[in-house]
């Protein structure tokens, strides 16, 4: 069983600050991490017995760090798709690039995180599945059964969950429920720094140049701005009982509660 896990290096969005003067993101000093749901996806793949797990990422050279991390956790192999031609990709171009690499690897199962915390789109997984003409399941919480022909999963729905079966090869995108976060072993970490990470370029993928990077991206960012949602409210301090009474009065006045 060959499993590809797709992963993205993202800035830790909890640590991001906005420069109030310029209204731009301050990315300096913000740690880059493996996207949390991708980490859960990786650990779920590593829990599968006798599987060869290949960590795959597309990004700048420094994205190698999350692939080293994947190796430390126990991934058998890591591949970085890194080429200037990939720059400026939207989700369409990203999924095309990843799908060309996956075609080359020819796995039985592809596991992705549901979405990345920087973009929150949840679009790359399903678009890879479409380009490879594979069945998919999104919001997967549990892999119930897996054999050489099919996978049975539990996926989250708006009202509960579904149990469903897919023929292999297939693609699943996972939520945090799929695995418990664990730490790599010391042995794993030292091994990770000895191993070689393969780098594949556009020419290695036999990709159509028109479908890569900016050229291959139908959407583009016209403008970005920082959200402003300020309200000029009354901020009241003082004795708790008095404050609580004031709110109660206000709610009665506004008929939010009855006297």
């Amino acid at each position, binding site marked *: 069983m060959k499993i590809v896990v797709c992963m993205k290096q993202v800035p830790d*969005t*909890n640590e*991001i600050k*906005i420069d109030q003067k310029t209204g731009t*993101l301050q990315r300096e000093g913000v740690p880059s991490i493996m996207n949390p749901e991708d980490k859960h996806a990786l650990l779920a793949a590593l829990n599968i017995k006798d599987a060869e797990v290949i960590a795959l990422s597309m990004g700048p050279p420094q994205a190698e760090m999350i692939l080293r991390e994947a190796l430390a956790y126990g991934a058998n192999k890591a591949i970085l798709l890194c080429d200037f031609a990939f720059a400026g990709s*939207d*989700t*369409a171009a990203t*999924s095309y690039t990843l799908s060309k690499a996956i075609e080359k690897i020819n796995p039985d199962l592809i596991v992705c995180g549901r979405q990345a*915390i*920087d973009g*929150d*789109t*949840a*679009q790359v*997984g*399903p*678009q890879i599945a*479409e*380009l490879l003409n594979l*069945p*998919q*399941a*999104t*919001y997967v919480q549990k892999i119930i059964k897996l054999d050489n022909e099919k996978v049975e999963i539990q996926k989250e729905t*708006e*009202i*509960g969950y*579904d*149990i*469903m*079966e*897919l023929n292999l090869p297939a693609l699943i995108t996972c939520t945090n429920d799929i695995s418990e976060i664990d730490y790599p072993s010391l042995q794993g970490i030292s091994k990770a720094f000895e191993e070689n990470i393969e780098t594949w370029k556009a020419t290695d993928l036999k990709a159509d140049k028109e479908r890569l990077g900016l050229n291959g991206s*139908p*959407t*583009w*960012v*016209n*403008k*970005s*701005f920082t*959200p402003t*949602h*300020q*309200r000029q*409210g*009354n*901020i009241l301090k003082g004795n*708790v*009982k008095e*404050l*609580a*009474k004031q*709110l*109660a009065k*206000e*709610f009665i006045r*506004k008929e*939010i*509660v009855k006297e």
Partner: protein
Amino acid sequence: MKIKLSINYPSSELHIGNGILINKESDWLEVEETKEIKEAIEKGFLEYEGKLEKKEEKKEKSDKDEIWIFAEALHGKLARVVLELLGKGKELADSLNVKLSVILLTDKDNYSKELISYGADKVYILENPLLKNYDTNLFAKVITEAIKNYAPQIVLYGATHIGRDLAPRIARRLDTGLTADCTGLDITENNELLQTRPAFGGNLMAQILCKKRPQMSTVRPGVMQIIPQDKDKKGEIIKLEIKISESDLSTRLKESVKSAKKVINLEEAEIIVSGGRGLSSQENFHKLIPAFAKVLNAEIGSSRAAVDAGWIEKPHQVGQTGKTVRPKVYIACGISGAIQHRAGMQDSDLIIAINKDPSAPIFKIADYGFVADINEFIPAFIESLK
């Protein structure tokens, strides 16, 4: 209508067609509204009483380049976001002067009347027992074919579990772009769809355009406003002629389980009491927040911190990675108000914040802020109502 020669008219008499002559001495004259008279009125030669029949300014709405909405209807009812999309879609369709249509895939049509009453001009429908349950490939196939046949310029989907599973597949089949989880949609001067969405956990808003057609977006539930229902509104129903069979199914659904717990309907709640880390323990959270919610007849929400701490389940979470809500009243209890949380509730009509830290960012977006320990504030509030 009645007319009279205007005192502004430079001469003493005016021929207004049909052999009628009107002069300064004439009193109000009852006449039929003709082209000549209208012209004279517009030039200011005549005064008039009564209504001037206005020229039909709006052209008949075009049947081409429609705006489409995917009418997600599963588990026996329309997803609420579909009605929200109709509200927004109508505004977009009016500004482009095109029709607003929905595409409905169902085993039994219990929905088209409702869809029309909330703003749809047309319902494209495929009714087939196979469409009882959602299947990625089956739904993607039908919608892709319909889009190819009718060529709408914009297609909108709710950013629900199903919308986010389906729309990316359709985007790749049609080789067009897709913008995820939009919170704002507008039409530009060049009649393009301007799609606004949060990025970097809500720290930044991005405005996105698409150079291919159709322009497609998934839209965050809870953000757009529903327009009032008009039960007399008429609409057209078009049956789609698309062949489907079992071989189109890409997955085998074995079991569909409804969560035993009460479904949390934060998006529709009028009042939400949300608890955060300031409650300091699971015990306090469960003692105080439900009691507060009960006296206000409110639903219970929470910050991500409270979910991560295991005090309450994820369906209660408000924010960028939780739900977006816009209730009449939102009460943030011991929530500091990280941008990720604010992104999910900042459009509430009235925001009340209670936090012991006066510098907590939640106060920046609150209409009323109370600097107090939430653990003391709630009992005092309940007491003062008695």
